[in-house]
């Protein structure tokens, strides 16, 4: 069976030490001010009126129906069979059509490569049988990565043992493969996905240019197919009329 890679984040074990971010930035040599992963702090007053902090390690959620892949004109954004969403640097133009499409703000234009960067679950490392850099370095063992299709994997066991949640809403439910354990606490609105948007240019192609083009070209083909059929019918009628008049003579 093909692997199905997932990331689990136990928010109760995260201490916001930023080791995952440092490991990721070192692994991928990301430019200043840019990171492929992050830890979001959400502060709020709990039901007893006491301040509380929840920590959410985040990155690309490697969604089953990834809108970034659908928005990419060149196919540079693509999804591997094992569920990992990747960006092919040699094809990516850096047009950023995919950037607003991501509801988790996981994509950014890399100022060094001028292509789109994002978390790849450290695909070169996992292809060598290693763990992603963030997982390997996580001090509190808050991050767990593995193959959910392997019943003997740690992630399969943990997914069965605990109540995990995903960052989904009624509006945005695109099959993220990143799970969060919050010990029963509700996930705050701050980390929920935003409605995926698209650049006006992308929407123009999708909603105006392509439909009008399809209707126009289809319509023209139908019109001239009709004209051709009519011409054929008229010609057959002419021939049979001529043959009829020949027979009469």
């Amino acid at each position: 069976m093909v692997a199905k890679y997932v990331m689990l984040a136990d928010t109760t074990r995260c201490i916001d030490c930023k080791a995952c971010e440092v490991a990721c930035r070192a692994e991928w040599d990301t430019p200043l001010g840019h990171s492929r992963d992050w830890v979001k702090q959400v502060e709020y007053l709990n039901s007893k009126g006491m301040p509380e902090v929840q920590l959410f390690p985040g990155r690309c959620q490697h969604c089953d129906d990834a809108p970034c892949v659908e928005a990419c004109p060149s196919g540079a954004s693509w999804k591997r069979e094992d569920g990992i969403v990747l960006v092919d640097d040699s094809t990516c133009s850096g047009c950023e059509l995919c950037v607003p499409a991501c509801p988790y703000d996981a994509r950014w234009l890399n100022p060094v490569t001028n292509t789109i960067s994002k978390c790849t679950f450290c695909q070169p490392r996992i292809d060598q049988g290693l763990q992603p850099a963030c997982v390997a370095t996580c001090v509190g063992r808050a991050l767990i990565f593995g193959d959910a299709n392997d019943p003997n994997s740690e992630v399969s066991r943990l997914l069965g043992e605990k109540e995990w949640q995903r960052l989904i809403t009624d509006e945005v439910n695109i099959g993220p493969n990143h799970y969060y354990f919050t010990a029963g606490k509700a996930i705050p609105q701050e980390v929920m996905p935003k409605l995926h948007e698209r650049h006006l240019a992308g929407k123009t192609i999708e909603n105006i240019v392509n439909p009008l083009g399809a209707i126009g070209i289809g319509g023209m083909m139908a019109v001239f197919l009709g004209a051709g059929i009519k011409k054929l019918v008229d010609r057959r009628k002419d021939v049979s009329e001529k043959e009829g008049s020949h027979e009469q003579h």
Partner: protein
Amino acid sequence: MNSTKPTIKVRSKDVIFIHWFNAFFWLTLVLTGFGIISGDFVRLAPAFWPTFMQNLFGGNDSLALMHALGGMLWAGVIAVYAVLNFKRVVLPFLKNVLVLTPKAALADLSSMTITLAHLFGLLKGKKVPPQGRYNGAQRLLGTMIIACSVAIAVTGLYLFLAPIMFEFSASALFGLAFRWALVIHVAAVLLVLLGLVAHIYFAVVEEPESLETMKSGNAEVAFIKHHNPLWYEELQREGKV
């Protein structure tokens, strides 16, 4: 072509070559171009086509490179030809084919509508007004193809060169221009394809004589007299018929 019917040379070999060169490159560039655009939100061709083309060319980067090189060859050859033959071929062609005023556009639209209606046996009482070398539909299509071809060449060059020449992260304008260049590129191609349906139908079904002219360069005098009476008069004045 029937050799007993009088004909006249109306197209030189270089014009015929450029026409078929243009047609060949349009076909290959459309096939490769629809293979590049992959994302479901922006793709017009069925999903199998980008997969097939990208596999055929060993990846989308190779396919995009071939498309760009083909596009630059197409635009470059036509541009050089146009410059070298501006007075002899391009200027007379533009004078005949460009529809520049609303009045001319309305007249051409009217004659095109009557021609189309005649195909379905409609508006039988209305005659197509006498036409010059190019009829109303050809003039409208020609004007559209010229405008769209320029737009396709300019936007295509930007789509290929901008990611190589400019740092998109340095200014949001580079990416903005790229995204709108893509919109214009696709829209212009679709507009031309729309017109080409009519162009190919008329050349193959309604007026195969025109197709023959685009192969041999010769046109039957009787055909010109019947379809393009204003042009026939012009040829008469010039003593060519």
